[in-house]
């Protein structure tokens, strides 16, 4: 599969949920179990991605400058800093550590 095909298929896949919601009767997905699964699935996928982006490179687990960046991010998030600030400071922390 080419990357272009992947981009287009993934876009269609994401759109399918959106349009699906407008076409089905409300009761279909209106169960507490379904909405719980939807919420926790999102939490789990994003958390898995945090782990992979922070600790894995080329299928090897290792610790590097990304960890201090993540620790600083946790502190900033606790103080309710906006997304863009947290991301920029996180990047800066890792870049500085690699510089010295």
């Amino acid at each position, binding site marked *: 599969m080419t990357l272009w095909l992947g981009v287009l298929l993934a876009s269609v896949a994401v759109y399918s949920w959106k349009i699906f919601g407008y076409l089905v009767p409300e009761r279909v997905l209106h169960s507490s179990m379904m909405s719980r*699964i939807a919420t926790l*699935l999102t939490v789990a996928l994003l958390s898995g991605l945090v782990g992979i982006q922070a600790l894995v490179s080329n299928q090897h687990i290792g610790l590097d400058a990304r960890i201090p960046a993540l620790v600083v991010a946790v502190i900033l998030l606790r103080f309710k800093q906006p997304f863009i600030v947290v991301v920029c400071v996180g990047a800066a922390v890792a870049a500085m550590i690699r510089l010295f």
Partner: protein
Amino acid sequence: MNGKGTVLSTSIGVGFAVGLYGISFGALSVAAGLDFWQTQVLSLLMFSGGSQFAFIGVIAAGGVASAVPAILSAWLIGVRNGFYAIRLNSLIGVTGLTKLLSAQLTIDESTAVATSQNEPKNQKLGFWLTGAAVFLFWNSFTALGALLGTAVGDPSRFGLDAAAAVAFLALVWPQLRTMQANVVAGLAFLVAVVLSPVLAAGLPVIAAGLVGVVFGWRNWLGVTEVNK
């Protein structure tokens, strides 16, 4: 109270604030190996931050070879939009072909602004204005980020790899309000990392997602619902 004016300023404010982090998406997408136009098309067509970050996150780890798990991750993260759409369908009253457009603008922010209004007229206005504002800002800033990312070159020199981890953390952070969500997050984190050396790139994320499905299905550590 001028409800209309408030809706307008809220919509533009939300659109700008959210749009800003399109810069980080654009830069990270280019660092993950997508080109400028692939990055831009994701923001135009997929238009759902969590799914877009997931897609490029999996591609960053495994390249084109992990396109299938990348598609799957983006799709699964997008499931919540389906729930928003069900809610909005009865709230903003769209019919016919307009549904195709409202579906595209159905995201966290447009839903949040629409549902936080009291009057039906403002709910509708809030949805369309916020959806349009986020769409414009998100796409413009994606382009800017992609150009910056291309100019930067080696992503790790500027900490862009760390920014990716931080971006996912910031996306999940607001949802970690219950014990259940925190345990799921911790377990999913571990599952993804531990399985990374043994499974093909992309699959560990899917395995992490299963943790959420199982906890949601069995409602482990969840609150017992008294009424349906």
